[in-house]
């Protein structure tokens, strides 16, 4: 018996012999994950969750009047300067030379955005006066959730859109900031949001790439700070948050590795042809 159909054979058309499915391969492209690597990578998700938590807690304090805008502004400014210096020091100036972005350009964009926000802060403050509080809370929660979903954690998926995630975070911050008592509060809140959602992830990405151990340490510290802040607001929330963080950093990697054993992809000569060549030489 030959595995052809264009010759008349004494066997029926759907006959198979003992060499059936010999060429079946299973899980050829399955990746072998290592627990520590996965935990390390899950730090990105933990970071973002903590950012959101810190932001919300800060807003809470400002709303309750326990944190003064000047204090927050000062603290944010100091940490920003520190981060700025660290950003260049980590890779010895190589990234800056590569991207060609001068310090003067950085200063300009900072001034522009600060002036803009300061100028619009009275408008921002009265923006949601007539909207009910529940709507504001719901909208902000939705937007922050969207921020977490669309954030670029390093995966190469189609749903990732760093622009959209940043915009959603800013939108949420504006919504929340408009609930604060005075326009200075609104200005400081929006600036703080900008720093924590736009500048902090940039620094973290660089740290992760260059100094993994430092990165782990920073993540752990940040998580503890977030937990601590949340605990002063609501203990139940802190417990829930802690469990969420533990689940994401420890439980999910374990589940991922365990479920890999159940993977059952079959490959064979019936697969679609893949073009392995690099087509860029034709373009």
């Amino acid at each position: 018996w030959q595995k052809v159909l264009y010759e008349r054979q004494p066997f029926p058309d759907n006959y198979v012999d003992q060499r059936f499915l010999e060429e079946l391969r299973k899980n050829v492209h399955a990746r072998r994950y290592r627990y520590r690597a996965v935990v390390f990578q899950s730090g990105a998700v933990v970071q973002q969750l903590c950012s959101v938590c810190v932001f919300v807690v800060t807003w809470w304090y400002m709303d309750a009047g326990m944190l003064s805008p000047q204090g927050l502004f000062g603290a944010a400014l100091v940490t920003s300067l520190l981060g700025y210096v660290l950003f260049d020091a980590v890779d010895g100036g190589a990234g800056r030379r590569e991207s060609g972005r001068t310090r003067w350009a950085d200063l300009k964009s900072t001034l522009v955005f600060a002036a803009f926000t300061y100028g619009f802060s009275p408008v921002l403050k009265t923006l949601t006066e007539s909207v009910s509080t529940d709507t504001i809370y719901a909208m902000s929660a939705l937007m922050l959730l969207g921020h977490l979903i669309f954030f670029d954690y390093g995966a190469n998926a189609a749903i990732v859109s760093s622009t959209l995630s940043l915009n959603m975070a800013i939108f949420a911050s504006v919504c929340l900031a408009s609930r604060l008592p005075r326009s200075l509060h609104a200005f400081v809140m929006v600036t703080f949001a900008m720093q924590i959602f736009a500048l902090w992830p940039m620094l973290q990405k660089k740290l992760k790439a260059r100094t993994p151990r430092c990165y782990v340490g920073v993540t752990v510290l940040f998580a503890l700070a977030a937990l601590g802040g949340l605990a002063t607001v609501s203990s139940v929330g802190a417990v829930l948050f802690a469990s969420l963080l533990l689940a994401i950093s420890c439980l999910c990697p374990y589940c991922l590795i365990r479920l890999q054993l159940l993977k059952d992809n079959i490959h064979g000569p019936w697969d679609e042809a893949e073009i392995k060549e690099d087509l860029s030489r034709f373009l």
Partner: protein
Amino acid sequence: MVLKVFFPSCCSSAESGILIGRWISEQNSAVILAVVHFPFIPVQVKQYLSEVQRVTKVSVSVLGSWSNSKQEKEESLSEFLEDLGTIFSHEPWIQISKEGDSKFWSCSTLQKHSNNPKEEEIILVYYDQRKVMLSHLHPPLATATSTDHKADDASKLSAVFDTVAKSKILFMTDRYDDGPIKLTHWQSDGVEASIIVELMKQASVPACMLLTFLLSLISGICRSRVLKFWPLSFLWSKLSTCEQLGHRLQHLQVISSNKKAQNQTQLMRKANIFVSLLIDVALGILLMSWLYRKNRIGHLADTLIPVADHVAEELQDLLQWLMGAPAGLKMNRALDQVLGRFFLYHIHLWISYIHLMSPFIEMILWYVGLSACLGLTVALCILSDIIALLTFHIYCFYVYGARLYCLKIYGLSSLWRLFRGKKWNVLRQRVDSCSYDLDQLFIGTLLFTILLFLLPTTALYYLVFTLLRLLVVIVQGLIHLLVDLIDSLPLYSIILRLCRSYRLAAGVKFRVLEQQDGKPLRLLMQINPLSYGSVIQTYRLPTYSCYPKDSWTSLCKKLFLGELIYPWKHKGEKQD
């Protein structure tokens, strides 16, 4: 084929003679125009006929013989008549004879050179020569889609009508003329004319010349450079009164031109324009006399200022309502106050302006009312313009609101694309992804939030002012519709259809008269007048009509996007 003989009913009681008319060989029909009586000299008859043929371009010839004898048929007369056939050679030679007072005539044809000697069937069709001569046959309007059969019928009829209409000169000689030929036709008892018509025809020539001179003077002034400077020309184009006056001037020019009307359509159009102008001016003078009696102008002027004040007060109340919480909607207080105060200030300006003008209103109205003598349409146009001027502030508010809203919508749509990380590609006319800088993103999102939350406020103001503006536009549109109606109605044609319905013929109908065996079939041809609908459709005067520029969907789309709408488009305006 059947031979059809069209016989004028006025010649039924004529003396014996020969029949002259036109032979239409394609349809095998003979249209008899008149009867030439004995005695006559054949050469003179032939000369006369060739002259008639030269003038009218209708091939008139001798078709046959007609004998009307009080006694029984005389053999010798019939032989004489047959001999005539040899003198005036015509194929076929028709012989009609009437005995005594009998209704049934005998008709026979003589074919000398025919192949088949069998007897041809003859149909006698009586027609009223006067009516057919004066009427105008309107071809069926759907000639493109009708079958060939119908088109054939129409052309057959039109051939008959044409023949009678073009042979006008034949009917000019009546029996009191001393000529070599004695004819009987519809005007043989005396040419129809009326003194009034003749007088008017004589008087119209110098009147036309005078009118033409005056009109050229007026149009020369209107076209002068002084009036063409930018602010004035813009003003003239916006006032509908000027358009209407220009339209009427054009009409007057058409009427007073020295060229005679070439064909029926032009004649009817001139007549329609003339009657329409006359009725318009008459109605206008009526209106004027009513207005100027009992000092109604004064009353009107007195009520105008309070009405304007009332409108302004209503607007102020409306704005106060908007500045609060209108219909329970939540507005942004700061923006609300800003917009509301801005518009209130405008209304305040407007009221002061009206009060400034109030002493002059009565005089202005008095002089403006005089122009109603130019026609009712002009008066209506002036009314429409006065409404436009009085509601100018509504128009201003609408423009402000629309511009603000349009800007907002435009900004929102662009920033929404930025929010998602996309950009509008102008080159490819589609939305593409784009990587923005950090500060662009930030400022863009901030602006997006601001615009989004301020949208309800602006949208409400825009909605309110758009509704007001639409109301004013609808009122003006109704007035213009009325003006259009008066302008384009063909009154003369309608009156003609009412009084002399045979003048406008849509077709003919045949009535079968009493028959006798052995005698030819007799039919009476009666004119079928046009229906009123087709009269109006055919003779409608062209106007500079205003019709809606946009369809409903595009209008809604424009309203939604905040583009300014000018719903009526005039015919002369350029397309944008």
